[in-house]
């Protein structure tokens, strides 16, 4: 187990190093830090002097090591636009994005389990067929289109719910303001969360259904039925427990994927999170912020994937750790 853990951690570090190298290569090639610093009106001589002072004439490798050293200490440069450390800018936007992901996760977990179980128990019922049909339509509608549709219906036509921003947020601590503490906050986060959930929900319904149908064929479920245990107990305690393992594995990976979809949702709803900030940074060619976003998001992906792999290795007794570590 320990060997597997160490190997998995080494892989995570290697991937982070690769990401940081890409990030540094972007920083090295995109935009000119000197121009951002002093503008156009400085003579060539002073420029060269400044370049030497800033270490911009050092070799690629030396500069990369310096970049890496700073990055490990949490310094990813200063945003050209916000004039403050890029990491701080991102950390200020992070809670908004995480709350959106959290809201979507609540919807996904709350709906996919009952729907998935139901369609597996009664695969031929009309309602189950409707759910399965809806799920394939759901997969086929891009997130941004769902979002636009909801804005059109609920904000433009009926004006029930607001279409942009976070509304009244309640300060918790540090950079964290929450949407979940006021009615106005809830009304603002509802549509974006549904939009974000809309792409993952059908996937999870189908996954749970498929796993559940497989488990329901197994001997121990038949035995439990023969013993006369109440069907509800069989479905939700005996069978569901064994379908959750693959669901958790896929789910963990999808949390990372959801970060990508937040960019789309946040753009449509003008949600002041990291994704929206990233697109603005791209339009302003705010290189340090772009690179910092790349590294923070890469970090989120690597951490969630490593944790999911470790949990999977721990929970599933059939995984041969020695072989996986090889």
């Amino acid at each position: 187990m320990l060997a597997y853990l160490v190997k998995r951690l080494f892989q995570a570090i290697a991937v982070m190093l690769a990401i940081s190298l890409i990030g540094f290569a972007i920083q090295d090639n995109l935009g000119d830090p000197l121009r951002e610093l002093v503008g156009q009106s400085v003579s060539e001589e002073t420029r060269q002097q400044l370049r030497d002072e800033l270490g911009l004439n050092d070799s690629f490798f030396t500069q990369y090591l310096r970049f890496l050293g700073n990055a490990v200490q949490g310094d990813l440069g200063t945003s050209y636009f916000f004039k403050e450390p890029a990491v701080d800018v991102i950390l200020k936007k992070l809670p908004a994005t995480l709350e959106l992901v959290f809201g979507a996760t609540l919807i996904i977990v709350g709906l996919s389990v009952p729907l998935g179980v139901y369609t597996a128990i009664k695969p031929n019922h009309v309602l189950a067929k409707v759910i399965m049909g809806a799920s394939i339509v759901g997969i086929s509608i891009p997130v941004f289109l769902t979002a636009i549709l909801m804005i059109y219906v609920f904000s433009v036509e009926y004006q029930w719910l607001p279409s942009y921003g976070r509304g009244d947020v309640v300060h918790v601590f540090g950079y964290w303001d929450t949407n979940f503490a006021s009615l106005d906050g809830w009304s603002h986060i509802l549509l974006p969360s549904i939009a974000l959930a809309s792409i993952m929900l059908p996937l999870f319904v189908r996954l749970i259904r498929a796993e559940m149908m497989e488990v329901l064929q197994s001997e121990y479920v038949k035995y439990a039925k023969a013993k006369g245990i109440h069907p509800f107990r069989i479905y939700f305690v005996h069978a569901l427990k064994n379908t959750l393992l693959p669901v958790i594995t896929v789910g963990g990976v999808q949390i990372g994927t959801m970060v990508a979809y937040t960019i789309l949702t946040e753009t449509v709803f003008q949600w002041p999170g990291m994704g929206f900030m990233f697109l603005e940074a791209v339009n302003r060619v705010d290189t340090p912020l772009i690179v910092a976003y790349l590294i923070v998001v890469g970090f989120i992906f690597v951490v969630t994937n490593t944790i999911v792999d470790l949990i999977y290795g721990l929970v599933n007794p059939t995984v041969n750790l020695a072989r996986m570590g090889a």
Partner: protein
Amino acid sequence: MSSMVDTGEPTRLQRIWQSNMAYSFRRNPVAVVSLVIFLIIAVMSLLAPVIAPFDPYDPASIDIMNSEYPPAWVEGSEPEFILGTDDQGRDLWSTILYGTRLSLIIGLCAVGLQAFLGISIGLIAGYIGGRLDNILMRLADIQLSFSTLMVAIIFLAVTQAMFGSETFNQYAIFFLIAVIGVAEWPQYARTVRATVLAEKRKEYVDSARVLGFGAGRIMVRHILPNSLSPIFVISTVQVANAIISEASLSFLGLGMPPSQPSLGSLISSGFDYIFSGSWWITAIPGVVLVVLVLVINLLGDWMRDVLNPKLYKG
């Protein structure tokens, strides 16, 4: 029974018609309708230059005074423009035809690239095995753990910032194909590798080796044809995903420019006008996009049921 009555060899077409797959296809109305709709969309969009009443790429045929006319069935419309016009005064019907063509081309080419990379890597990893297999599959795991959309957004954003939007817009179609094509190769590589591992042990491969055929020939001419059914199943889903990815990227302004819109960029330009009531610029291309992706997904579902019932977990 008909084959017993028939005299002579059935032609190739007859054999296809009588195969199990064609039979299950004819018995499945959803699959038939999906294929018909897909073919209609594909043929119409490929013939866009012929059937479109206007050329949306020709600035001379566009008049800004014509902008935001509603579709023909809504009051205040102009009979010349069946589906209305967009914010720049382009005929929406023509623009959608051209846009669908772009979306389809990008989707198909990107999946072609994915398939080429993935199948080659999968064959090599599965057939040669050992350390190379280990490294390639580890790479595939890592690549898969990053969402394609995320990789594509970051790659295109950086490319756009680096080249400036002028140059970027000119080559946007190639960037899109390249990034969607490269990011998804592990999907193919993993499946192909798995089937190669199963096929490799069979006798026909041994006999081919005994006959002295080279590894390349055995991989491409003998093993590959026997691994085609999972490849077909993945391909349909991948085309649907690629079209969605392209639309999402274009919607974010990281794909096709408004001057040469795909369905995604059309929806994006219409989004700014949705609050002023011009719903059709967003809604009509949106419906086309959803229908296109939906029929491909339905065909994929049917194909998965027929070819490989075990693959349902995708």
